[in-house]
């Protein structure tokens, strides 16, 4: 297949994957929203039914003792013919009354579980076949003494979901065809000159292969191709050199052979040589030329489909909101009608204000209620004279005669907020898909274009240097691969000639050892005299997609894991809840910390491919274990296993990048490694929330296992077989070493200031506030897992943005201590604000600011630590200092998790957040004092 064809297929594969994944998530997202909307509609009925029971309970009677309870349930069921069942149950889940009547029994355990876990009085869930909305009934002490639930069949949701899936599916298919056509046209235009350029080289090479002169320059001007043209020119120069060397070697070898001698047919096993290749200028310029095109195509198709999804969701959203507000008005009108029918005059509605106040508090989508006869006799809420379009009226009749009406006005701000949430969710999905698409593009580009180009370049460089002992094995027939094959065939020919020449020389010699290529051809040549070794290339791209998928597999449950741990049974009654929830997190960190030093020896012994696959298998078992886990012990056990899996997998990838690539490419490769890891975590956090909201928490673990398997398969296919060839010095081992000798560096005031004042508090912010407390605190406020995920996403986003900003500011503002102190003070203050004024907005602010603070601190922290390690602590060695930092960071997180976890039982989640804020501020203050002291001491020693 031609380069154009291959690239086009790859591009449309990316577009197809992007559209398919986005379609799937859009339908899921639609279903999440629509399911919530239906449940909110159902909640109107449930809330209205629960209100009288709450009144009775507040007066001291159990719900079961209401004689007319069945009538109340029947009345609720009558409000909406779609309601399948309304059930009144006691705190143990025993059905007290239901309509239609059902045999004595209990409500399902999962429903009771949702009620128990809900801090709010209103809760809902979706099962395979039903949508359930419930309201808890509490006594004056706030204890749950019963509940009401109403059940909708899932048919309405399924029908609408199927319709939306059809719409989005058709749109995807249409967009796929459209963007495939556009892709072809654009790629053809972009590649036309390149293909001609490559064709020119191929032609030239072919001519040389046939001993002719290099063909005349083609009409393709390098200038037209810009940087790529230059790169092609450079390749061409290399080819010229290689051809010269080839010709020279060939001529010399042929001269050594008798007239009738022929080249030897070489056989035997081929040697495999692993080579790490950094990106070449040619690859970079090629990637620059094509990646934006493919990215634009993927982005364009994603945005177009996102818009279609937006329209579909909007189509479901608006009518449902109208239905709900109408239901609220109808329900209120029915209650007022009942009151008037009982004999209460319409202008003497005792407690009417309180009644409507309660409704306004329960349903913020309504902003105004009034009871009107000739004039309003009762008004509650904020009346807007301009709200005609959002106003509805519901007549009140006596004996068929209208005596008044209830007027409602919907709250446009609330509706806008709800819709904004919908758009945000969709935006998150599109963003994640784009991240995924980017990783995919990099891999596709590497397989189709950049990889083969790099390989070709490497071979050209070798041959230009006279080394004909290696060859490439082509997997396709693209222009680039054909060039590689031509060069490889030259190597084959020369080695066959060399073998024949050597045999001819050895025929007259006593020695069994044949002469080397240097001896035969002179310096500047390298031939093996046997089949050329096959080059197997390693690049950072090999691990990008698997690492991205693995990071997703690991972090997909992050947004809800604390809630999952809380829901697990705690058989150890002596363990407080907060402490028990913190245990799995601590165990994960501990096993990851302790297993990290083993990753390198294991990778060296068994190969990074096997190590990664082993880690993936561990992760699959861990995720399956978490799927089945029911008590906190099992959660801790499997999450610990997960910690080992993550440490091994991420370090296998990191070691692969560091060991297999040339030293010069390390910095860039490590940066790519971190970016990929972060992209996976970022995407996983966002998607995990949406998936958990849609599918439930447990199934997400199965998806994680699937992603881990996919990552393992990719690694198995992309990474070379065999033990790593350590291409460079082993100083990297220093980076991952642990040093439990934390006291030695702590004697230095500057190091102590950094460790105690910045490293540990910031680790606590990351591992305790973000991973653990944030979910619990937001859940307490009744926010969904998607909301939690969005806030966590903001943390990661700010972390990266601030890191990038800090890098740019570094040249102008080289004051690491000030940056660290300022960042910590900012994080501490916002955490305190979130603790004292807990709301979604303050927590969002806290998470974003914490991300910003941590992002800003990364660089300065490394500078100061290295300054200490190479300065006053030089006698300990850099590895000891860095190892101590690692232990302090993780150890601080583990202890912080357990202590803060225990504190939540007394101080609550907000209180615990406040404590972290105080620790951070105290740390910042301590840092400033100790650091200043440390600097003074240095000043005294070096006046």
């Amino acid at each position, binding site marked *: 297949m031609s380069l154009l064809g291959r690239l086009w297929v790859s591009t449309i594969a990316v577009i197809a994957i992007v559209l398919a994944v986005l379609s799937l998530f859009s339908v899921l997202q639609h279903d999440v929203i629509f399911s919530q909307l239906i449940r909110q509609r159902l909640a109107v009925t449930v809330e209205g039914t629960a209100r009288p029971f709450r*009144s009775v309970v507040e007066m*001291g009677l159990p719900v079961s*003792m209401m*004689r*007319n309870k069945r009538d109340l349930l029947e009345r609720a069921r009558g409000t909406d013919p779609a309601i399948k069942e309304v059930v009144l149950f006691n705190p143990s889940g025993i059905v007290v009354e239901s309509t239609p009547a059902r045999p004595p029994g209990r409500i399902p355990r999962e429903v009771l579980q949702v009620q128990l876990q809900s801090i709010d009085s209103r809760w809902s869930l979706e099962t395979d076949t039903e949508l359930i909305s419930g309201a808890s009934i509490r006594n004056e002490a706030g204890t749950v003494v019963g509940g009401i639930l109403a059940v909708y069949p899932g048919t309405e949701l399924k029908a609408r979901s199927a319709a939306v899936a059809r719409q989005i599916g058709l749109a995807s298919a249409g967009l796929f065809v459209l963007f495939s056509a556009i892709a072809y046209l654009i790629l053809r235009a972009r590649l036309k000159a390149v293909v001609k350029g490559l064709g020119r080289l191929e032609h030239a090479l072919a001519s040389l292969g046939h001993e002719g002169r290099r063909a005349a320059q083609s009409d393709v001007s390098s200038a037209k191709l810009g940087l790529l043209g230059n790169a092609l020119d450079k390749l061409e120069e290399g080819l010229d050199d290689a051809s010269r060397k080839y010709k020279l070697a060939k001529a010399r070898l042929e001269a050594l052979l008798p007239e009738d001698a022929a080249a030897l047919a070489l056989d035997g096993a081929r040697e495999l040589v692993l080579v790490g290749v950094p990106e070449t200028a040619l690859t970079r310029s090629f990637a620059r030329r094509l990646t934006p095109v493919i990215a634009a195509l993927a982005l364009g198709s994603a945005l177009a489909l996102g818009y279609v999804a937006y329209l579909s969701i909007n189509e479901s959203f608006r009518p449902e909101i109208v239905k709900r507000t109408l239901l609220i008005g109808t329900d209120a009108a029915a209650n007022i009608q009942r009151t008037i029918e009982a004999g*209460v005059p319409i202008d003497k509605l005792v*407690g009417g204000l309180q*009644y409507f106040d309660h409704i306004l508090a329960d349903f913020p989508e309504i902003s105004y209620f009034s009871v009107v006869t000739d004039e309003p006799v009762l008004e509650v809420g904020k009346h807007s004279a301009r709200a005609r379009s959002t106003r509805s009226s519901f007549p009140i009749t006596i004996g068929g005669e209208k005596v008044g009406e209830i007027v409602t006005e919907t709250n446009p701000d609330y509706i806008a907020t709800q819709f904004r949430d919908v758009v945000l969710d969709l935006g998150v999905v599109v963003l994640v898909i784009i991240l995924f698409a980017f990783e995919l593009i990099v891999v596709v580009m590497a397989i189709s274009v950049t990889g083969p180009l790099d390989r070709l370049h490497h071979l050209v460089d070798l041959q230009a240097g006279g080394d004909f002992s290696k060859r490439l094995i082509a997997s396709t027939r693209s222009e680039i691969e054909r060039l590689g094959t031509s060069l490889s065939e030259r190597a084959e020919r020369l080695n066959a000639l060399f073998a024949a020449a050597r045999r001819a020389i050895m025929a007259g010699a006593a020695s069994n050892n044949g002469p080397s290529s240097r001896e035969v051809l002179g310096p500047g040549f390298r031939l093996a005299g046997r089949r050329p070794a096959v080059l197997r290339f390693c690049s950072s791209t090999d691990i990008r997609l698997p690492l991205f998928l693995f990071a997703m597999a690991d972090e997909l449950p992050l947004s809800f894991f604390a809630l999952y741990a809380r829901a697990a049974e705690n058989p150890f009654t002596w363990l407080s809840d907060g402490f028990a929830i913190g245990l799995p997190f601590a165990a994960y960190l501990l096993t990851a910390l302790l297993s990290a030093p083993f990753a390198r020896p294991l990778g060296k012994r068994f190969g990074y491919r096997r190590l990664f696959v082993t880690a993936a298998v561990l992760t699959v078992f861990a995720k399956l274990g978490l799927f089945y886990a029911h008590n906190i012990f099992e959660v801790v056990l499997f999450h610990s296993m997960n910690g080992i899996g993550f440490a091994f997998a991420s370090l296998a990838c990191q070691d692969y990048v560091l060991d297999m690539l040339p030293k010069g490419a390390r910095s860039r490769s490590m940066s790519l490694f971190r970016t990929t890891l972060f992209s996976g975590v970022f995407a996983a956090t966002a998607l995990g929330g949406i998936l958990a909201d849609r599918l439930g928490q447990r199934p997400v673990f199965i998806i994680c296992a699937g992603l881990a398997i996919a990552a393992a398969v990719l690694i198995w296919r992309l990474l070379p077989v065999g033990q790593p060839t350590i291409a460079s010095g082993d100083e990297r081992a220093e980076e991952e070493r642990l040093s439990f000798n934390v006291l030695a560096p702590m004697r230095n005031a500057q190091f102590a200031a950094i460790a105690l004042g910045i490293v540990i508090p910031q680790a606590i912010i990351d591992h305790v506030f973000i991973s653990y407390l944030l979910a619990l605190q937001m859940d307490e406020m009744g926010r969904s897992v998607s909301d939690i995920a969005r806030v966590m996403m903001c943390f990661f986003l700010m972390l990266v943005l601030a890191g990038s900003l800090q890098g740019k500011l570094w040249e102008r503002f080289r004051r690491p201590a000030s940056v660290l102190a300022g960042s910590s003070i900012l994080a501490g203050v916002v955490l305190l604000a979130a603790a004292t004024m807990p709301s979604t907005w303050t927590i969002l602010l806290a998470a974003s600011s914490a991300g910003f603070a941590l992002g800003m601190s990364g660089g300065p922290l490394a500078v100061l630590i290295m300054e200490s390690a190479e300065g006053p602590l030089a006698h300990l060695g850099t590895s000891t200092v860095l190892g101590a930092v690692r232990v302090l960071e993780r150890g601080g997180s583990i202890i912080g998790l357990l202590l803060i976890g225990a504190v939540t039982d007394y101080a609550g989640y907000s209180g615990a957040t406040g404590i972290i804020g105080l620790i951070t501020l105290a740390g910042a203050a301590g840092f400033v004092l100790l650091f200043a002291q440390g600097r003074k001491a240095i000043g005294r020693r070096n006046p």
Partner: protein
Amino acid sequence: MTRASKLVSVLLVAVGSCGLLVQTVEARMKIGMVVWIGCEDVCRGVKDYVSENQIDADVIVLDAAQNPAKLPGFVEQLRREHFDLAVTWGTKVTLGIAGRLADHDDPRFLTDIPVVFTVVADPVGSGIIESYELTGRDSVTGTRNRVPESVNIKSMRRYMPGFDHLGILYDANAPNSMLKVEEIRRLTDTLQFKLDAVPLSVLADGTPDPDSIDSGIAALKEKGVQFIYLGSSAFLEKQSDDFTGAAVAAGLAVLTPYEHMVTDSHALMSIAARDYDVGKLAGKQVAKILVEGMRPGDLPVLAMEEFAYLVNMKVAKRLDLYPPVEFLQFVEKVN
């Protein structure tokens, strides 16, 4: 078979059949339903339960007709006629038939025949039993049919948010009535309301004077009460129309534990179980003893499981005291 032997056989069968018949007649059990003011809804509930559940027993009503002097005679009759069980209605009747805990050896009270009491306002406070879970008496068990008094007070406040002054008219000679006043008084601090209790005047025979109802209501009105609570008084229940009528005339609302005072008289509101259902609950206890052979002393006092808020809307209108909108969503209304 000879003719003589056939004759003997026929005679034996005939004698046997007569014996069985006699045995059947003798096996039909007798339940004495001792009531204070005739066989009303509770009594009918007991009867219907026995009949519907095919308990092989006759329910024989023994009506004291508000005359406590008849009660010792009923004790005698129940023993003499070998009644299998007695159901007693109200505190006075129960005290007269079963006595108190301390009377377990006193032959004036039934200690040898099972007793199921019902419509007793405070059986523990009046010393009939030790506790609702364990009566402390081998032959006595019963039913409870009232909500805790705090429910009544909170309900008045829910109906009338500014409520803080309660009035009770009581029968000073009736222990149940006195106990109820004391029980309510104990709640005044915790529920923050003021209580004024006015006793009914007593006639020469020790019974309350019906004419004192009006003056009692007037006295309560004068003290500024906002609601009158019936508490526990068979007398006022009997004088339902006069009592509730006088209250309404004085512009005062009455809350009662008896539904019929809302449905048939002029009480504004009740939080009560249906009397008929109370009778059926007593029937359930009877079945446990007579059919299942359980010992009354082993049976806890059964509580009514369902109560209703009942509001008389005509009275509400007359008092211009309409229930709040939220209240009307769950109360049962009488128009």
